[in-house]
């Protein structure tokens, strides 16, 4: 095994991103889709941190982007779960197929 470096971090974050994409495509339940979105956001955070650590260690911009992404992800999760619970109240289900009258 070789010393972990930038490429290892990028490999982990890319794989995590596409695991999240796979989950987003296959899941039909709104809560599990939200979980996939959290995985995608985490992979982006890991990417920013890896570039900050290995390439631009004289600045801290990647770190700040990570902090702001975490704050925005928390707000997004709170609003999404409020919407999901409200949808459950009116439809008694949180599958995306049962919420399709929002299209029209």
């Amino acid at each position, binding site marked *: *095994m070789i*010393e*972990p470096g930038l*490429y*290892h*971090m*990028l*490999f*982990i974050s*890319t*794989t*995590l991103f*596409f*695991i*999240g*994409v*796979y*989950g987003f*495509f*296959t899941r*039909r*339940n709104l*809560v*599990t889709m*939200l*979980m*996939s979105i*959290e*995985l995608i956001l*985490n992979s982006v*955070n*890991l990417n920013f*941190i890896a570039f*900050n*650590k290995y*390439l631009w*260690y*004289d*600045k801290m911009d990647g*770190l*700040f982007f*990570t*902090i*702001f992404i*975490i*704050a*925005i*992800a*928390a*707000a*997004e*999760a*709170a*609003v999404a*779960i*409020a919407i*999901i*619970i409200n949808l*459950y109240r009116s439809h008694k289900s*949180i599958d995306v197929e049962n919420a399709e009258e929002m299209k029209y």
Partner: protein
Amino acid sequence: MSGSNIIFYLLAALTLVSALMAVTTRMIFRAAIYLLFSLIGIAGIYFWLQYEFIAAVQIVVYVGGIVVLIIFSIFLTQQAGEQLPKQKLGRQLFAALAAFCGLALVMLQLVQHDFVATANKAIEPTVANIGTQMLGVDEGGYSLPFEVVSMLLLAALIGCIVIALKSKPETT
């Protein structure tokens, strides 16, 4: 092969395997627990990279906040022991194919690209440095995004209250 390497590979395996389990398992409550382990693995990778502040924020916000919120919403919206309906095989196949093609494309680009590190002196990501730059108003300071994010959090708070409000029955 040092202990540090072993710890890194263990953390990477924990993160990826539990993320994969989180998107494939059919028990929704187990999916939330696997997501929890995946986020803890990422926090461990931040610790391994010696970004302790980010690791602490990750544990507090994601593990302590978002996963607990997701578990609560699972309890409120469905039976925890219930299995999700089985997905169509074609959809799973095409999703796996799309994800794999994207992964292969990005990995090809990654291994062909040669990254060049900066030659400047490194600065330590200590909490003092982070705080000074976060609230700095001179060049490179992040006080404007900080204020914008605080406005966003306030808007999200009000939005959640408005969404969760019970609408009064119409009185005519």
